[in-house]
């Protein structure tokens, strides 16, 4: 619940220089390469998979990795490699959906309560703080309990449980912006509330929103996979990494590949997103990069 306010960026970077600077460290380059490969694999999962991910008995049950089944086979004789490619599709899509829910709702709530201020702000902050008192995983589980299990509901649950944190950060960022003299200056020339929100606040909040989103994407992918692992997210036979891990757990003594490869895929996906997000936040946040 440590919600620190990211510094509000003052410098402008054109997109090309932004990308160039984001790729300025070996870690970020490695992360980007893995991420591009994952996205590529996810987009063309159907073309790239040697087998139908849900077709059973395409290979011997729990068969070890081989040249035909790169990552081996699961209990039902399904090809793990094909299932992981299709799992990438689901994980990335679900991750993006989750982040979109938290960001859109969180940004709107945070911006509006900060801008309206006064009692709205006081009550809003109180509510957000109470929501933050629920550990994220507990909140997500509670929401799943209401919505029912499933991949989409898990994404919704993780997305909703992320709203209070985003709203809190955006609120503090908006408050620092509202205190800037250029906002007073806009009011002094007679600009309307909507103009100030749209032209003066939102453009300056964008970098923070992007940073928050990129830092949250990894966590979102991880959390939804966690819910699936716990049996609260994607249900069998859906090809989903968390669910695959959960199934593989029982056979790890005899067929460790059933849990190694889905876990590795999940780990690489989360790490690549974190590597890029971490670097992006350094580039966009002048305080983090020591430019202030």
């Amino acid at each position, binding site marked *: 619940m440590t919600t620190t306010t990211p510094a509000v960026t003052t410098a402008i970077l054109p997109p090309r220089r932004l990308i160039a600077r984001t790729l300025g460290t070996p870690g970020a380059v490695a992360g980007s390469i893995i991420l591009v490969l994952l996205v590529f694999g996810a987009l063309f999962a159907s073309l790239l998979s040697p087998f139908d991910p849900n077709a059973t008995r395409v290979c011997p049950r729990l068969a070890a990795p081989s040249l035909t089944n790169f990552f081996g086979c699961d209990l039902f004789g399904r090809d793990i490699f094909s299932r992981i490619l299709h799992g990438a599709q689901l994980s990335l899509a679900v991750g993006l959906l989750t982040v979109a829910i938290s960001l859109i709702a969180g940004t709107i709530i945070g911006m509006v309560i900060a801008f309206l201020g006064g009692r709205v702000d006081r009550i809003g902050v109180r509510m957000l703080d109470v929501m933050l*008192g*629920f550990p994220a995983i507990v909140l997500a589980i509670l929401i799943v309990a209401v919505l029912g299990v499933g991949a989409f509901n898990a994404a919704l649950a993780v997305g909703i449980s992320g709203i209070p944190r985003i709203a809190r950060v955006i609120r503090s960022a908006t408050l620092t912006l509202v205190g800037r003299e250029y906002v007073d200056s806009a009011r002094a020339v007679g600009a309307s509330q909507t103009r100030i929100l749209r032209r003066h606040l939102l453009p300056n909040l964008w970098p923070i929103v992007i940073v928050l989103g990129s830092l949250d994407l990894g966590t979102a992918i991880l959390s939804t996979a966690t819910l699936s692992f716990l049996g*609260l997210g994607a249900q069998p036979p859906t090809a989903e990494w968390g669910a695959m891990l959960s199934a*593989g757990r029982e056979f790890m003594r005899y067929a460790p590949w059933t849990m190694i490869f889905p876990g590795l895929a999940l*780990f690489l996906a989360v790490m690549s997103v974190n590597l890029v997000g971490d670097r992006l936040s350094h580039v966009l946040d002048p305080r983090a990069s020591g430019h202030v």
Partner: protein
Amino acid sequence: MPWFVRRVLGIVPTLFLTWTIVFGVLQLIPGDPVMLALGGTPASDEVLDNERRRLGLDQPVYIQYLTFLKKMAIGDLGNGYSSKQPVSEMIAARVRPSLELALGGLLVGILLGVALGIAAGLRPHGWIDTMTMSTALVGVSLPSFWIGMLLIYVFGLQLEWVPILGDGIDALILPSITIGLFLAGGLARLIRSALIETMTQDYIRTAHSKGLSAVRVVAKHAMRNAIIPPITLLGLQFAVLIGGAVVTERVFARAGLGSMLIDAVLTKDIPLVQGLVVYTTTAYIVINLLLELLYGIVDPRIRSRRA
């Protein structure tokens, strides 16, 4: 009013709001609670009505809400649907495994995280820092259920160094490492940034200008200022953990509060879910309060701030 009294009283509305949210959210769970309470066994209308009256579900929602608040205030969490036992007793029976795991994980996390965080923060951009931060990034990206399984596979199944089941202290090693690794990554990053930020403050320059030794500058002048964010993180993580390490308990098949919550959700045992969530959030709020009281001791500015 002294500042700590204000703070203690300040949690009353927070608790009230939190319980209200729990009550509200659980009202939304689909399905007739009476049917759930009976575990789906077919029953006559008379039985259903009796059960409904017994659970107070025949009352209007606001009466149910007031009853709920009253019961929460005196610590009565009702009876579980499936076991018919008082929820508070069920929880009490499972606190110990969760608490042990929480302490074990915290210990590993602190040992690793504090050492790495300080080493990295004192020489930012040096090689220790680069190594530590890369490792920490890997640490926070590792799915804890996967790392738990890998640990079981390598140390439990292949090397057979530690038992993977049981109540002994050695059965606690792998799950503690699993949790500790996750904690250490975030903790090291936070300590590092807090320390770097503090070391650039003007009062650190003042301390150097007084001719103090580097150790004294860091240990006395920097640490006390840099310590609040890491304490916050640890305290709140601890609060989450004593509510049950949901994932780790699952992986290591430990009968703690976390696995209890999952089972309760899957079987729609509403009083049990409600009791567990109330217990977890209340622990969270109380620990948060203790942390704030601690800040007041560490930082005098917090004491004098008005409510």
